[in-house]
């Protein structure tokens, strides 16, 4: 890779060991993906929940945090993805003090590096939405696909170590979606039904993700006349990234790089694949459970927006959950504070539900929570969560928010 004088100085260790590690790490990744140079980035966002960090990852962070101030501080604004713990509620979820202490150690290390603890995967809705053409180093696949697709920003999926390296240096290797030639559509999907609920948008994303199936494919979607809002795009993108590792999609007439089909591909070069109502129904049917007892209903992954919190409050008003069913609504600290001020949290929790903030259900020791709480059948409107949570020993059921709430009240899947 071609290095600038400053990058060479970092590699020589002249700006401290953390920046030397960071440049070297990114050069290894850059070589893997044939990057010829670095590109400057304006923001970094790091996923570093303690479940994935483990003791080894925390020690890695603490080593950097113990360095002198001028060596350990990040050089660009850097924020965090959800944590594994909501310190106000972890005991009620039967998470352990050990989990909380690991979490605190990670937080202390991040703060020593000058990282802002936003604890959110909806930073594009709540913190600082990127602008078109902005180069970023964002973690969380849902964040990256949204910012690339809906906002026209440029980011690869940056795992925690690479996000941190970008934060410490203000750079990332220029490969993948930082290059315009990799942003053209390679797959074309025509949808012949109209998504209605957020879970429908998620299902559409899941179907496209599963069919595309690789980080290096860029789907373009046509045929939808409904105009999605931010939450619809959020659910579709998160599901597409979860099912297919997809970092960018185009929706003709909606996303900024695709004012027309011709803007993102040569239509006669790629045949359109139809996604029918039968495909949609088959997708939902993968997740069974009708009539069964439901242990826990979870709204999470991505964290709920303020508008989703309002929808949930309206559905739960004057109603009580079944005594054997838990309902968890997971949101960001910013949304939680607003929702509390506006009375939404009280309306949700008076049903017996629990609002959690700054965490994400599936990266919160979901397996241990299942065992400690006796949870098996989980219901959600999040296609992403339904996809992931089977790996943690749950049996997921997928439906829209209305049915999820009705099931939590009935105690069985309606």
């Amino acid at each position, binding site marked *: 890779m071609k290095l600038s004088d400053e990058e060479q100085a970092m590699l020589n260790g002249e700006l401290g060991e953390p920046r030397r590690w960071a440049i070297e*790490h990114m050069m*290894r*990744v850059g*070589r*893997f*993906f044939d990057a010829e140079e670095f590109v400057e980035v304006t923001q970094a966002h790091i*996923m*570093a*929940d303690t*479940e*994935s*960090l*483990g*003791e*080894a*990852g925390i020690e*890695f962070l603490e080593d950097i945090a113990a360095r002198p101030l001028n060596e350990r501080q990040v050089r660009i604004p850097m924020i965090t*993805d959800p944590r594994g713990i909501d310190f106000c509620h972890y005991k009620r979820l039967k998470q352990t003090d050990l989990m909380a202490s690991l979490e605190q150690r990670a937080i202390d290390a991040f703060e020593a590096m000058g990282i802002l603890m936003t604890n959110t995967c909806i930073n594009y809705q709540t913190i600082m939405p990127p602008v078109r053409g902005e180069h970023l180093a964002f*973690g*969380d*696949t849902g964040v990256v696909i949204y910012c690339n697709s809906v906002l026209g920003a440029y980011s*690869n*999926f*940056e*795992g*925690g*170590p*690479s996000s941190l390296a970008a934060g410490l240096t203000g750079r990332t290797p220029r*490969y*993948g979606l930082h290059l315009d030639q990799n942003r053209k559509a390679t797959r074309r999907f025509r949808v012949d039904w109209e998504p209605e609920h957020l879970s429908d948008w998620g299902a559409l994303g899941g179907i496209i993700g599963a069919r595309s*199936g*690789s*980080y*290096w494919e860029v789907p373009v979607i046509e045929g939808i006349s409904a105009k999605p809002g931010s939450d619809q795009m959020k659910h579709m993108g998160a599901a597409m*990234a*979860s*099912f*297919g*590792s997809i970092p960018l999609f185009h929706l003709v007439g909606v996303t900024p790089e695709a004012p027309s089909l011709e803007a993102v591909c040569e239509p006669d070069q790629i045949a359109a694949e139809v996604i029918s109502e039968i495909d949609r129904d088959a997708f939902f049917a993968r997740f069974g459970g009708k009539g069964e007892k439901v242990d826990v209903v979870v709204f999470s992954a991505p964290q709920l927006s303020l508008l989703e919190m309002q929808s949930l409050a309206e559905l739960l008003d004057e109603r009580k959950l079944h005594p054997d069913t838990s309902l968890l609504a997971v949101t960001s600290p910013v949304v939680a504070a607003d929702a509390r001020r506006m009375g939404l949290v009280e309306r949700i929790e008076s049903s017996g539900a629990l609002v959690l903030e700054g965490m994400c259900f*599936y*990266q919160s020791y979901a*397996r241990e929570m299942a065992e400690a709480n006796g949870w098996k059948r989980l219901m959600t409107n999040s296609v*992403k969560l339904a*996809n*992931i949570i*089977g*790996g*943690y*020993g749950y049996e997921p059921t997928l439906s829209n928010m209305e049915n999820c709430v009705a099931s939590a009240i009935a105690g069985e899947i309606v």
Partner: protein
Amino acid sequence: MVELKCHVGVGPVVSGEALVTDDNFSARYDLDRTAGIFSRPQHKLAGQSYVDRIMVFNTAKGGVASAWMLHEMKSRGIAPKAILFNNVNPILAQGAALADMAMCDRFDDGDVTRLIRSGDQVTVNPEIGLVTITRA
């Protein structure tokens, strides 16, 4: 002995027994990392151990956290020796770079999940992009 050329990868030279599937991979979605087995019931390797294997998959799926997980798995010694893909996503490559775990993809001779069979003895040399198979 069969030699397979691939793109330059990351990590050290390693040898071991291959475990191959045409399925995809995510450390977050598919594994019980404490037990060292594939745990997602739908995964084609469900129930099998990945410990010290040379794993071969089609591609990597979502899950940014996998970047930390390879490092964490390796620190406990409950990890694959190497992971080979037809095409990997950046997250797993970044994770292998942190963990110093051998990883390669983009094989010249086509589908690596067909070129290597479970049980093959395999040597991976990421620095030069070469995988060698010894079959009994």
